């Protein structure tokens, strides 16, 4: 009798997840699941990728130099600072907060870096660290005001947006600018990774991604846990390999306007910086307790608090990360232009970055977003001024288009959110 009950128990345990095996078993199922998710409003980076395609088609048909490798490399460098700024913003957006001061925080940090290098002869890396530390301090101040005093982040960061613009203006003086010509820091934008090293890095990234994916597949499949079908894993690895190796090939070709006289080839140094930050923050967001808690606080702060998570600390850390990333972004922007001026980081820089994060699939309502969203979205946003610049459009067009894109991205977010809650995905 006992034996019998035991067998039934085991059976019911085995049957407990009968449906669980309905997870995508073939690539066709996976495709159908994906379509269902799309229909349910879970779009991920799809709007950004579509936007990128549209922009590329429009600009390349309007201007024949748009698709040249020279311009593509230029685009990568231009996108760098936007991607980094947006990546930082993802952390506060995940909490459903906003940091309007991130752009000017980057400008202020870059000013400090440039000043200590020029006036005090600091080495590039101590100067850069000083700039990033200033960014972290700004984030600490914002985070503390938001969490400890309970002022809405919109108001706190608006105040910082206004006040921080005074820092470069005071230190540099109206109409002036600081040169930003350090060999290494300026080199991030104007120098390239040696072609061989670039290829090695590309292959390592592809192999590393494949190894991680296959290892994960094997452990999950052998332990009978939820896993993607092998075919899907292979397709994903293939797509990544195509993108990474394709871009490497593109950037490794000689792209000089006069190929007979100069050679300009290799991946711009900005790209490895952005990729390293992307990998690091993706790991933090998806594989660490801090990342998990960040999503939890963004999804339901009260539930997180009851689960014993220190919500205040998570929020302050998110603001510190956002402002530190803003500082790095400010350094990249200075590296691109070769100078820091009182207007650095002002204007539409921040809205570009918010637009990048949101169009990449990060929700303005909190709890949803990835580091890669910022990079994909950043490429889209960077394409706009790049293409418009080639077309010699008046700068008012640039503002109109950026505003339109931001509004469009926010609408997509709002609509997909409504569909999600209707579909319950």
């Amino acid at each position, binding site marked *: 009798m006992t034996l019998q009950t035991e067998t039934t128990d085991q059976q019911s345990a085995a049957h407990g*997840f009968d449906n669980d095996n309905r997870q995508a078993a073939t690539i066709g199922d996976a495709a159908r699941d994906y379509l269902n998710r799309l229909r349910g409003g879970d779009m991920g980076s799809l709007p950004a990728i579509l936007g990128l395609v549209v922009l590329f088609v429009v600009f390349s048909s309007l201007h024949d130099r748009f698709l040249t490798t020279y311009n593509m490399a230029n685009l990568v460098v231009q996108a760098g600072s936007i991607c980094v700024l947006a990546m930082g913003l993802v952390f506060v957006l995940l909490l459903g907060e906003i940091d309007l001061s991130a752009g000017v925080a980057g400008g202020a940090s870059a000013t400090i870096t440039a000043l200590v290098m020029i006036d005090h002869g600091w080495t590039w890396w101590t100067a850069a660290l000083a700039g990033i530390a200033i960014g972290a301090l700004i984030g600490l101040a914002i985070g503390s005001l938001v969490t400890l005093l309970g002022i809405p982040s919109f108001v706190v960061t608006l105040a910082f947006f206004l006040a921080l613009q005074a820092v470069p203006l005071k230190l540099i003086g109206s109409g002036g600018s600081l040169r930003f010509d350090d060999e290494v820091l300026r080199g991030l934008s104007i120098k390239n990774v040696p072609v061989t090293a670039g290829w090695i890095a590309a292959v390592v990234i592809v192999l590393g991604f494949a190894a991680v994916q296959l290892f994960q597949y094997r452990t999950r499949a052998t332990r009978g846990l*939820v896993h993607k079908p092998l075919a899907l894993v292979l397709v994903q690895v293939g797509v990544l390999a195509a993108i990474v190796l394709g871009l490497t090939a593109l950037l490794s070709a000689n792209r000089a306007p006069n190929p007979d006289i100069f050679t300009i080839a290799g991946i711009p140094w900005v790209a490895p910086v952005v990729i390293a930050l992307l990998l690091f923050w993706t790991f933090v967001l998806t594989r660490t307790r801090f990342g998990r808690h960040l999503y939890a606080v963004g999804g339901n702060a009260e539930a*997180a608090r009851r689960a*014993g998570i220190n919500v205040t600390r998570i929020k302050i850390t998110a603001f510190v990360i956002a402002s530190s990333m803003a500082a790095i972004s400010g350094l990249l922007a200075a590296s691109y232009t070769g100078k820091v001026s009182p207007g650095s980081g002002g204007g539409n820089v921040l809205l570009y970055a918010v637009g990048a994060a949101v169009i990449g699939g990060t929700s303005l309502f909190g709890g949803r977003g990835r580091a890669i969203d910022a990079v994909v979205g950043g490429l889209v946003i960077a394409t706009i001024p790049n293409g418009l610049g080639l077309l010699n459009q008046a700068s008012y067009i640039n503002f109109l288009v950026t505003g339109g894109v931001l509004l469009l991205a926010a609408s997509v977010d709002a609509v997909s959110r409504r569909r*999600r809650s209707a579909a319950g995905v």
Partner: protein
Amino acid sequence: MTQPLLELRGVNKSFGAVHVLHDVDFAVYPGQVTALVGDNGAGKSTLVKIIAGIYGRDSGDYVFEGETVAVHGPRDVAALGVEVVYQDLALCDNLDIVENMFLGREETRGIGLDEVAMEARARETLASLSVRTVKSVRQSVSSLSGGQRQTVAIAKAVLWNSKIVLLDEPTAALGVAQTRQVLDLVRRLADRGLGVVLISHNMTDVFEVADRITALYLGRVAADVPAKDLTHSQVVELITAGRSGDLGITNVATATI
């Protein structure tokens, strides 16, 4: 009778001038479902929050497994093995079932999360509770029905080998079939030897799963008796009037605050 897992003895609690609990004795036995019933304002929520360690006591003892323990906060209570499933469930919609079950107590390997171990343990727990309504443990909680959410919240509570689970109105927002699922689950918890406290307004639910019924009336314990010795109408009388026949508070007049 077996020794209670948890016992509150002579607990008093006031908020300012309002005396909410008067000398309340409350016991939870292993393997039994104790229903805590009472009208709005009878002190049920206050009592639960005292058990959960959210409120302190003005006087009275907190006795766990026969020993008086000092409870200073929710963490002490969780360390004893007492888990509370609140009415609003406290789940994160944007996380999946596994992530929610381990929220705040994630298992790690090195500096990273040990997703494999967590998923395996979550499945084990759900299977041991004979939960078979969820499609996948990697489903996001926002896609679950009310009953399934309740199930996840309860599974989260028992994941930690807890000894006592307090359920605050677990069926309040559920339909008939889902209520059925949750009540079955409550019964299975008790059958596993856990002490279960069920706070409910629904007499049908109470009589279906409860072994003991503790009725509160204006902050006093009106009765603490086996469910089988009571009828439906007696419980209603205890809740609304504080007494029923020879059961209940002897002098209801003095019981008013």
